[in-house]
């Protein structure tokens, strides 16, 4: 029973964190920018949400404000990158480190518990009579489904196409009359808006916001994206919607892996190291396989007589 409960918890965490992974996907895959704002904007969403709820404001409203704040953080990174010509990685780090102080200022302390306060999950649980764990899971799934649909539609529009094209060939996009500074900033705002939304949802689900809640979020996002891609690696062509679904699925699988290793007795302190190794291995394996395949085919050509054209 313990395992099943742990897995249910993992799945519901997976979908909520999956929204963060979707945000990372916007920048890392769609725009082809390594945006490190993530850790800061995730905690930003959490801080704002927790602070607004302790102030007695509507928890749903806090989601909207979190999205807006995340988008603003993305805009700052975008401004530093496009207008000030700071490399994207550095621009993201600058925003991220700045947000650490901003988040402390917002909360006024490093940890804000929501124990006795009304979160949206508690409201929904009271409304539906379902247990809290299920409410969190169902809400997460509904949010993910809605967001995937919205994103799918958005990236089918003229502006959405221009953002995708910017990630593929920004030179072409400019020559076809779209402002790539604008598309980049828009993509960064969208990504960080999603990330902050995820931070706010996670905060309400776990019942507290912490200044360090975003630490390593970028790696978890990457892990989710890569796990998702590995799962669907058999498919040559994937529709955009399927790719987004794969990200969420990757996030869920990541959480299940984490839950399982914790059940097996891994110290939580080692979790980040495990995540880092997981991502590094997942990134390295396809390269190693390709090299091995190349070597094998060369060796096979040597074996097949002396004409050296065995490969043909």
């Amino acid at each position: 029973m313990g395992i099943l409960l742990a897995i249910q918890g993992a799945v519901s965490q997976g979908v909520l964190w999956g929204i963060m992974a979707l945000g990372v996907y916007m920048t890392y895959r769609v725009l082809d920018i390594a945006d490190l704002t993530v850790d800061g904007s995730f905690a930003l969403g959490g801080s704002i949400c927790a602070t607004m709820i302790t102030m007695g404001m509507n928890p749903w409203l806090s989601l909207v404000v979190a999205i807006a704040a995340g988008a603003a953080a993305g805009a700052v990174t975008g401004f530093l990158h496009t207008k000030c010509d700071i490399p994207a990685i550095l621009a993201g780090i600058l925003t991220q480190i700045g947000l650490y102080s901003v988040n402390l200022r917002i909360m006024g302390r490093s940890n804000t518990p929501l124990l006795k306060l009304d979160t949206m999950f508690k409201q929904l649980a009271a409304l539906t009579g379902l247990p809290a764990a299920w409410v969190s899971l169902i809400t997460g799934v509904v949010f993910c489904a809605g967001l995937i649909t919205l994103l799918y539609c958005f990236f089918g529009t003229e502006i959405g196409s221009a953002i995708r094209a910017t990630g593929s060939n920004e030179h072409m996009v400019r020559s076809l009359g779209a402002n790539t500074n604008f598309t980049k900033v828009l993509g960064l705002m969208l990504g960080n808006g999603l990330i902050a939304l995820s931070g706010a949802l996670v905060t309400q689900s776990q019942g507290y916001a912490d200044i360090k809640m975003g630490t390593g979020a970028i790696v978890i996002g990457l892990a989710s994206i890569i796990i998702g891609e590995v799962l669907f690696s058999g498919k040559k062509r994937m529709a955009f919607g399927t790719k987004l679904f794969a990200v969420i699925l990757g996030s869920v699988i990541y959480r299940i892996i984490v839950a399982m290793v914790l059940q097996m007795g891994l110290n939580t302190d080692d979790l980040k190291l495990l995540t880092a190794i997981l991502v590094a291995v997942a990134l390295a394996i396809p390269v190693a396989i390709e090299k091995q395949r190349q070597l094998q085919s060369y060796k096979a050509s040597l074996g097949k007589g002396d004409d050296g054209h065995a490969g043909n």
Partner: protein
Amino acid sequence: MLEINHVYKTFNKGTVNEKKALTDLNLKLEDEDFVTVIGGNGAGKSTMLNMVAGVYPIDAGKIMIDGTDVSLMPEYKRAHFMGRVFQDPMMGTAAGMEIQENLSMALRRGKRRGLRWGITKQERERYYEELKRLGLGLEERMSSKVGLLSGGQRQALTLLMATLQKPRLLLLDEHTAALDPRTAKKVLDLTKEIVEEQKLTALMVTHNMKDAIQIGNRLIMMHDGHIIYDVKGEEKKNLQVADLLAKFEAASGEEFANDRMLLS
């Protein structure tokens, strides 16, 4: 329609790598002029096209299109006026997107992009017909990723994209230089066909002197960042490669030996 007045451009100003790319460049194009541009390496041919397109800002002078001063207009805004094809076949298309998506981006060149669908059904029908005339079978692969196409196919597609929505000015920067001779000829024929059909105004940089003489109604030769020879009409038609070589030699003197290979 295009006026380049006293344009200067120096790269890496004040460093050891300083390169005067354009010095007092002047050029005036009439409507439907199809101008071929020749010159040795570093003569400023590509720089001229890039300045017109707005890739880099100019140091001095003025560039006017249809009476509008575009000197300070950013590249993406100038795209409203022009279609471009580059030397590198990878540059003009987005590898990660479908053929039809690339075309749909091109169809919206210079227009406001909003939240309308990025590609419509009627468009797809048009793309099918347009791709068919390339004769490369791409019309049956409209939802393939452009990254799967060969350099020649991508260049033909870029040419189609540049002219899908009639440009005021077509800029061709050695667009056949990276292709094998047969493909180059095909893309060149297609270029002539489209320019004639749409009655386009075009600037075409080439290293092939024969092409430069045969194609278009006007020829300019560049050296050291400005135009040293400008012929049109009958005079251009009667040009021989030898004449151009002589002209080039007279202008460039000792550098001739270096550039001969590229010009012959």
